[in-house]
């Protein structure tokens, strides 16, 4: 009886620590995001050639970065899930995969908006764009696979397999598209502009990357908590496999 109360007490205090940490992260992230927006729209000088549309890069690059970060989280937690069979790794992979789709979608939209202004077209089949689109399709497939799987435990295992395969595939997709388009003239890419960034622009970009990383961490944390709550409500705890 004594021990049960102790465990409950420690569990409650763990939860308290977690919610305090989450609140701190929310406040820090919120302040950073406000500062980031101020930097991007008020402080950083306007780029001379491309004009005001170049400011979209301070959103586009961090979004692409968080997209890649989230797919890496899916990959690692999928491997650990298949290895250990613990439900919390599946919760992390699933939550991160949803964020992958969201961040990659936003990357594609901001990229297309910029491309329309800079290149005059919404889309070109340039290697980086094509790879991003295929990446998006693979993680949409991941979420569909979860939705269509017959049981939660199969959904967890199937999607872990997809999370691993998709991540391993990305470099191969990039190489193949790069070679396939290799005969065509390369349109000006992100690499060409970031080389000539002045220090104010670089500071803004780096700050924005940090801000979006905090945003990603916070949203991922909230999504995992939500996922745990969903599981608890539906009483669908996946029986933990022994490794």
């Amino acid at each position, binding site marked *: 009886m004594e021990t049960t109360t102790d465990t409950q007490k420690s569990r409650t205090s763990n939860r308290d620590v977690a919610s305090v940490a989450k609140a701190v992260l929310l406040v820090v992230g919120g302040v950073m995001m406000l500062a980031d927006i101020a930097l991007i729209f008020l402080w950083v000088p306007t780029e001379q050639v491309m004009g005001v549309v170049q400011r979209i890069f301070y959103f586009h690059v961090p979004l692409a970065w968080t997209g890649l970060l989230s797919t890496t989280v899916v990959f690692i937690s999928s491997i650990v899930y*298949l290895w250990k069979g613990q439900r919390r790794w599946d919760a992390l992979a699933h939550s991160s995969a949803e964020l992958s789709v969201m961040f990659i979608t936003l990357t594609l939209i901001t990229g297309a908006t910029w491309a329309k202004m800079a290149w005059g077209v919404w889309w070109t089949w340039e290697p980086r764009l094509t790879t991003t689109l*295929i990446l998006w*399709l*693979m993680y*949409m*497939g991941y979420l*569909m*696979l979860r939705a*269509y*799987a*017959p049981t939660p435990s*199969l959904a967890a*295992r*199937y999607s*872990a*397999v*997809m999370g*691993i*395969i*998709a991540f*391993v*595939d990305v470099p*191969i*997709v990039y*190489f*193949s*598209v790069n*070679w*396939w388009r290799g005969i065509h003239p390369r349109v000006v890419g992100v690499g060409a502009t970031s080389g000539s960034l002045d220090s104010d622009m670089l500071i803004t970009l780096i700050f924005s990357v940090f801000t979006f990383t905090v945003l990603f961490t916070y949203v991922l944390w909230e999504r995992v908590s939500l996922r745990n709550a969903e599981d608890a409500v539906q009483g669908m705890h996946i029986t933990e496999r022994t490794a």
Partner: protein
Amino acid sequence: MTGFLIPILVVTWKDILLELRTKDMVTSIFVFGLLTAVIFNFAFDPTPAVVALVVPGIIWVAFTFAGVLGLNRAFVLEKDRGSLEGLLLCPVSRDVIYLGKLLAIFLFMLVVEAILFPVFAVLYNFSLADITLFLIAVLATLGFAGVGTLFSAMAVNTRSREIMLPVLLLPVAAPVVIAAVAATSDIMGGASVGDVSRWLQLLATFDVIFLIVSSFVFGAVLEE
């Protein structure tokens, strides 16, 4: 080595025997592949000038879609008749089952491609003389069937399983399609094996990576 190889061949032989008796898979892949080529004929109207441009694409889109159709069937019989449980009861590891099923699918697709290539060559008037086309077909089909067998084993258990397989497989297999089309197109344009070697290397890399990864994770797909 033989201790590992024989169980694989036994699983493959089971599927071959089934196919020899029903002829379901090869017939449906063949007819569907041919139909795709006929439909493309209306879509592109391949006059001699256009042929070199669109035919490599037509060939591989036909093989890809027909392959998806065949892969969809790969585990349907195992599931509907409950023979998957029988396979799982066999005293062999899961990767043996994977490699056995993969080898069977791979052979069926190769057989169909061996029939369809001459048919396409007649329909679209191109030459089959270069043996490199065979090499491209083997490497591309192996990679496609390698990931496809893994996804097929998952898709068969999902709702709307016919949709699930292409949704998962086509983006992942995009490098295979790109490499196969590009290499085929180069060969038809008169390039030699050396000119397309980087595409062949890409296909071989894809095959090796995904055969290893799929063998590792296949167990997780089959466990009940």
